[in-house]
C-alpha cells in the first residue's frame, strides 16, 4: 500500500472507528452508520491536516464513499 493510501485508511479508520478488516477502498457512506454529518466535518478537517487540502463544504457533503474522496484528492495531484 503506498503512503497516501495508508494515510487515507488510517484517517477514515480513526474517524469512523472501523475495526480490523472493515476498511475498504470501495467503502460507501451508506455502509457505515458512523459516517454521519459530524463525521463529514471530521473527515474534511482530517483531510486538511493529512493532505493539506481544504475541501469546500460542497465537496465534503458530496462525498459518498472512499472512492469520491480519492477522486477529489487525485484532482489535487495526490496519487494513490
Amino acid at each position: 500500500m503506498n503512503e497516501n493510501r495508508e494515510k487515507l485508511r488510517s484517517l477514515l479508520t480513526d474517524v469512523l472507528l472501523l475495526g480490523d478488516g472493515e476498511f475498504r477502498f470501495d467503502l460507501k457512506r451508506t455502509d457505515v452508520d458512523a459516517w454521519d454529518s459530524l463525521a463529514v466535518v471530521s473527515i474534511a478537517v482530517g483531510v486538511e491536516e493529512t493532505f493539506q487540502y481544504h475541501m469546500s463544504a460542497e465537496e465534503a457533503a458530496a462525498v459518498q464513499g472512499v472512492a469520491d474522496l480519492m477522486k477529489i484528492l487525485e484532482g489535487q495531484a495526490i496519487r494513490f
Partner: protein
Amino acid sequence: MKVVHEAEVDRDPAQVTRLWAASESFVLAPTRAGSGRSWLTHAIALVPESHGQRHFGLLTSGSAGDPKLVIGSRARAEALAEVIHERQDNDPARQTICLLPLSYSYAFVNQWVWSHRFGRRFVTTAGFSDPAGTRAALEAARDAMVCMVGAQVPLLLQLFPTATFPGVVRLHFAGARFPQERLEDLARAFPNAKVFNNYGCAEAMPRLTIRGAWEAPAAQDVGKALPGISVRARDDVLQFRSVYSATLVVENGVAHAIPGEEWIPTGDLGQVAADGTVLLTGRASEVYKRFGEKISLPQVQTAVQGVWKGHAALYRTTDEMGEGAHVLVLAPAPDDKELKGILALLRASFARPHWPLRIESVGTLPLLPNGKPDLRRLADTARRSTVHWAQRY
C-alpha cells in the same frame, strides 16, 4: 394520540400545521428515535385521556439518558411563543430558518410555534448534514430568525469560513454552552443579527430565561427568568416553576403530571443572583450535552463494562473547541484486542457525541472512601496516564 416522525414532516412540512389545527393530540418523534417505536407506543398508552386533546408530545432523554416523553399544552406553547417574541424583539423577523431537528423542543417552540402564532414563514433545511442547502437557505434569507446550538458554531465557521448572511436579523442559541467567545466571528458571519442566548429544558417546554449577547460578558450568565417563570437554586441545583411548562412527563414506565405549583429540577447546577440573574455552574449529576445531545456517562460506562472486565471510569473535560466532552479511563491497561472491542462497541451502540474524547489507562483507579472513583483525582492523574486512543479530529 397520533405519532408523526420527522421524516414524514420533512416530506410534507404543512402536516404540522394540520396537526396543530386538529383537536387530537400528537407526538412528533425524531427520525432516529433511540427509544424505538415500541417504547413510544408503551409511553403513549400511559398518557391520561385528559391530555388526548390540544396537546403535543416530544421525545427527549431522561436524567439517566433513558427516553422520556414530554407532553405540553398547545395554548401554553403559543403563550410562551408570545413572551419569547417580545423578549427577543422578534417582530422584524419575517421568516425563520430551521437548522435543527424539529422534534427538539427548542426548534419546535422557538421556531415552528412562533412562526405559526405570528404568521411568519417557516423554512426547513437538513441542517449541517446538507451544508450546501443550508448555505443556500441562509444566503437567501430575508429578515430571518435562525436558531442554533452553540456546538454548531465551529461547524458553521469550518464549512463557511468567509460567508456572510446579512439577511439574518435574529440569531438565537440554546441547548448547550453559549458561544460567548465566538461572538466576533458570529458578528462577521451575521452582520445584521441581534444575538440572544436562550436557556431552558424540555420540561419547561422549553424556555426559562433569555438574554441578549451584549447584556453579559460570560457564557454562564443566562439572564433572568421570563415573565410567568420563577427559577431558584436549592443545594446548587436549579429548579423552576412556569405557567408554560410541560403538563406531563412519561419516564421509566411512569406518567407524572406536572402541577403548576411544583418546583421542577432543570438538570443543571447553578445559582440565582439577588437581582434574579441565573448563573450556570455545571451540569447536574453525570449527564451533560455534547453537540446538543444529552450524554449519560453512566450509560456509556455501563455499555463499556459489558465488554471490558477491568475498572472503568469517565471524567468530564472539554475539547479544543471548549465543548464539554468526557474521557474514558481504564485500569489496568487494555491489550489491543480489548481496546478494539471497546471501540467496536462505541461505534455500534452510540452516536458520535457519546464517544469519549480519549481512552486512557492508569495502574490503579483513585477511589473515594465510599469506593467510587475519585473523578477529581482521576482527571489530575490522567495527565500521567497512557493514552490508548483519541479522537483525532
